[in-house]
């Protein structure tokens, strides 16, 4: 074991040196770094956290407990698509709790052109209530809350896609783009759209979207994920 020299921060008499070292130690990175990283990894937000925790717990329980939990989980897995079918049959959104701000998904066919820019997105029928002038702290909290809502929306897309319901996933994606026309996870949502199209057998549309994606975002961190679709 070699002797560790004292850290410069503890031994220096120079205030500038201390300030510089403190700057190096205290760098935090941009806001929402964690959320962006989780989204890039395709890890679900709050729902994923719950799933991960539950499954870790599941791993140490007895077989009888596992069986009970498996039955419960299976019921949930059946209930989710059933709820979605009910949602599509009944336009009253109050009967179904969506995991993000309520926008009833319209099961319209998805166009095979790249999505319109945010300026052309149809405005919601009911304008949101005007917010009072906000402090930076309040604005930051609002931004964080909006990002959580975006993550929840994309979680819903992933869950639906995981249940082989590509049409439902595309509808949720349409709802996401309408709800968050200036969302911060648009790139992740675009990749999910390509996944959903391919999974639904619409390989030509997936390819077209993938090629458009690569043309618009050649340096995106998700480029390598989209590449295989563009080359099919």
């Amino acid at each position, binding site marked *: *074991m*070699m002797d*560790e*020299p004292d*850290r*410069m*921060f503890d031994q220096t008499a*120079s205030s*500038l*040196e201390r*300030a*510089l*070292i*403190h*700057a*190096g*130690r205290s*760098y*935090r*990175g*941009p806001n929402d*770094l*964690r959320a*962006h*990283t*989780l989204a*890039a*990894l395709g*890890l*679900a937000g709050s729902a*994923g*956290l719950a*799933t*991960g925790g539950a*499954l*870790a717990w599941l791993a140490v329980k007895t077989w009888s407990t596992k069986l009970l939990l*498996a039955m419960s*989980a*299976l019921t949930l*897995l059946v209930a989710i698509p059933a709820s979605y079918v009910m949602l599509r049959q009944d336009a009253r959104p109050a009967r179904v709790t969506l995991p993000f701000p309520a926008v009833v998904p319209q099961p319209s066919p998805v166009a095979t052109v790249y999505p319109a820019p945010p300026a052309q997105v149809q405005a919601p029928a009911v304008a949101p209530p005007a917010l009072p002038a906000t402090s930076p702290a309040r604005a930051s909290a609002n931004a964080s809350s909006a990002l959580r809502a975006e993550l929840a929306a994309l979680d819903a897309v992933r869950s639906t*896609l*995981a*249940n*082989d319901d590509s049409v439902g996933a595309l509808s949720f994606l349409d709802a996401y783009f309408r709800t968050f026309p200036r969302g911060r996870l648009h790139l992740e949502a675009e990749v999910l759209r390509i*996944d959903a199209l*391919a*999974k639904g057998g619409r390989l030509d549309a997936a390819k077209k979207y993938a090629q458009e994606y690569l043309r618009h975002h050649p*340096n995106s*961190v*998700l*480029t*390598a*994920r989209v590449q*295989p679709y563009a080359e099919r």
Partner: protein
Amino acid sequence: MSCQPVTHATALAFRPAVALPAFGPAAIFGEVLGKSKREVRLRPLVDNYVGLVARILRNAGTAEADIDDDVQRVFIALSNRLDDVRVGAEKSFLVQTALHMAAHSRRAAARRRETLTDHPPDVVDSLAGPEEMAQRRQVRRTLDQILDAMDVDLRAVLALYEFEEMTTAEIAAILDIPGGTVASRLRRARADFRERVAMLEGLARTEVG
């Protein structure tokens, strides 16, 4: 280390989307459990190390504007290599990858500068007074300028030891160099850093006087 060093190219190689299984209890539980193992391992790593990775990237020379993307790339690299990374060695992998990524970022930035201008940037473009120096942004800019002027190997050791407060043994393992080399680089890095800071302080006193 149980894993190979990661290049920027491998870091960018995102695993293609996995085909989902057919709807059925066995398929679903296989997929859900398989996915959860990855998720259960990855999520705490993001929670615990996202700040560390951002800091190492920044202090090793990645531009502020590229931090968000490069942090994601580092974790994507970990995700792609998760099965090769021994449990407990994830932090080392992340630090190594971040240093590689920062090196790539510095080279790209240097190429951009060469394209834009024939002149290298000034080491210090202006000296601020004590009040302004207290402002975080100015201090950060000064730190960047000092670090950018340092030798890359010395900079890495300085950042890991002084900013991340790692031990010399940890640094030796991460950089895959002998402990004596770490100690030697640290001595030289500190001397270099102090000399540059002293020069700044001297210039500041001259300006005030």
